[in-house]
């Protein structure tokens, strides 16, 4: 009797899980389907789901108009670069706050987070002027720098919560054995926090990949990543949904595939420390 209830509950949860999963996935699926439609079918009412004349015309058009590989390369360099530099800065910072907190540690953390509360457009002009004077406009270096800065608070916060889960005694033991500070961080702390660091890294790559304010406003032709690539397919006069969908599919494909392969790591990291 009890068994059948369990099965029923399992079934309910499975269906619910699938339903929510499909609901969340639907926009991506719809974008994918629209990318194979003609502009006319893309806006047809009632919408056509699967039975339409599939065409690759949009992908062809997008390929011939834009340099996709250039944008992908820029996206990869910018998102991975800013995340790695961010981690290099954040690991020592989070270590300090997690293992030798002071009276003001909470305030420092709060202050770091507060920088995220300001709408980015508020600092657009000053930052633009600095970039202009330093020759950083439309360079990958400039974007890596700015994305490192804006994502740093999140990296520090995430790492801080992961590090808090690691017993300080282990680090103490390493110190007793004569490990230097550097060795303690590199050989003891980091290996133990790998799931946390990995999920922080993945999440930040995704954040940097999708960042669309600074990447659009500080670039022109050379350093423009995939966000600029997508932005070039919307039009105030004329139908564009099918081409925009094709461009979007191409833009999210790399990060989607990366997420797919690393989802185990991501989930493990995000639930790290949840079960004590």
């Amino acid at each position, binding site marked *: 009797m009890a068994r059948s209830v369990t099965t029923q509950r399992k079934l309910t949860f499975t269906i619910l899980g699938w339903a929510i999963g499909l609901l969340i996935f639907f926009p991506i699926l719809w974008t994918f389907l629209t990318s194979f439609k003609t*502009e*006319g079918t893309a*806006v*047809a*009412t009632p919408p056509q789901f699967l039975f339409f004349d599939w065409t690759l015309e949009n992908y062809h058009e997008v390929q011939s*108009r*834009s340099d996709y590989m250039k944008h992908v390369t820029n996206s990869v360099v910018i998102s991975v670069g800013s995340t790695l530099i961010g981690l290099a800065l954040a690991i020592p910072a989070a270590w300090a706050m997690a293992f030798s907190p002071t009276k003001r540690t909470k305030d420092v953390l709060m202050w770091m987070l507060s920088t995220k509360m300001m709408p980015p457009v508020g600092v*657009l*002009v000053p930052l*633009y*002027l600095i970039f*202009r004077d330093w020759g950083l*406009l*439309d360079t990958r270096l400039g974007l890596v720098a700015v994305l490192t800065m804006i994502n740093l608070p999140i990296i520090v916060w995430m790492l801080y919560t992961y590090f808090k889960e690691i017993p300080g005694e282990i680090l103490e033991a390493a110190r007793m054995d004569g490990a230097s500070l550097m060795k303690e961080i590199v050989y003891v702390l980091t290996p133990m926090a790998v799931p946390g660091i990995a999920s922080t890294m993945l999440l930040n790559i995704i954040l940097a990949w999708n960042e669309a304010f600074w990447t*659009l*406003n500080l670039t*022109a*032709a050379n350093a*423009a990543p995939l966000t*600029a690539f997508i*932005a*070039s*397919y*919307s*039009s*105030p*006069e*004329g*139908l*564009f949904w099918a081409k925009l969908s094709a461009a979007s599919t191409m833009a999210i494909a790399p990060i989607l595939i990366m997420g797919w392969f690393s989802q185990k790591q991501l989930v493990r990291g995000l639930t790290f420390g949840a079960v004590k």
Partner: protein
Amino acid sequence: MLSRTLLLGAASVLAMSSFAHAETLTIATVNNGDMVRMQKLTEDFTKKNPDIQLEWVTLEENVLRQRVTTDIATKGGQYDVMTIGTYEVPIWAKQGWLLPLDGLGADYDKADLLPAIDAAVSVDGKLYASPFYGESAMVMYRTDLAEKAGVKISEKPTWDEIADAAKKMTDKSTETYGICLRGKAGWGENMALLTAMSNSFGGRWFDEKWQPQFDQPEWKKALTFYVDLMKEAGPPGASSNGFNENLALFQTGKCGIWIDATVAASFVTNPKDSKVADKVGYALFPTGGVENHGNWLWAWNLGIPAGTKKAEAAQKFVSWATDKAYTELVASKEGWANVPPGTRKSLYANPEYEKAAPFAKITLDAMNAANTTKPTVKPVPYTGGQFVAIPEFQGIGTAVGQQFSAALAGSMKVDQALQSAQALTTREMTKGGYIK
């Protein structure tokens, strides 16, 4: 010795890189058919000018506007040629952000530009941007539906005539709606139509002392007429329809009348996308009791920011993209129907173009009817047409557009919408220092 060699080497590398740099023009542009076509014809330009390379940055209109405005206001120098609208040209020229175009060459023929367009992109007689394509607004209607309903739309219709025809064409059982008008909030969306509409009813945005005029009878008449007509003969959910949504509705045969930018004519008559390609009739923008056809005029233009270091090469490019030879180039490659319209008299005198584009004459009439220097019947302190050419208009226009969109959706009464439009415009204009 070694350091000198190194220094020399470094200097020559620098010199070479700046030399190579000087040859690449970065062009910012919007994504529409004519611009994309220009991008595809790049080769023709680089063949004629082997020392100049072109780098294209195509962006969505609003992103582009934000992007180029930041760049030009800070003299960032990211772009050498910018695609800008007739709204920006006079404002930016007065700020000293644009270079006057005085080196376009002998073949450019400025006198050939349509007078209305020429006036819109010139300040004190000097050209500050070169028009690439231009448009006005007009009535497009389904000739078959009009016939079926037994109505005739004259070449210069009045709003009453349009309303009558729209109501008769409406058949909600077959999802055929008599009229499709913009309803989506935005200074370039519903406010373009409503400003032109108010112009045609004798209204104006501001009096000579910059006092907002939404409390005047003309605006009330225009807005009431619009809301009532759309309720009776418009499609459901019209408050979220912009140009593209109405285009899709018209192309799929769901609209009897569509009043919008003249450029739409080339879309709705294209049999590849449109089900109604051979059933479209045209008329001038309607009038509402005064002799004013809305004064809708827009052009996308190529301008050169004052911060560029490659002004000479940039002028060469602008000249190539907007002179008469370019029109012929497009015609030879893509056919006359695909040449950028609305900028030059010579195009409309060309019999081949008239044959390929049945809407050519009415487009020309619409453009000639527009006067941006005197957009309204009553005197005003501004230039414009379907917009007011002051920097504050983007913000104010969109905020007012939201009120009017709400009125169309029925979540607000017409009077209420006008009142809040009046209040918010007065507040912004006082803040801007216009109202003392």
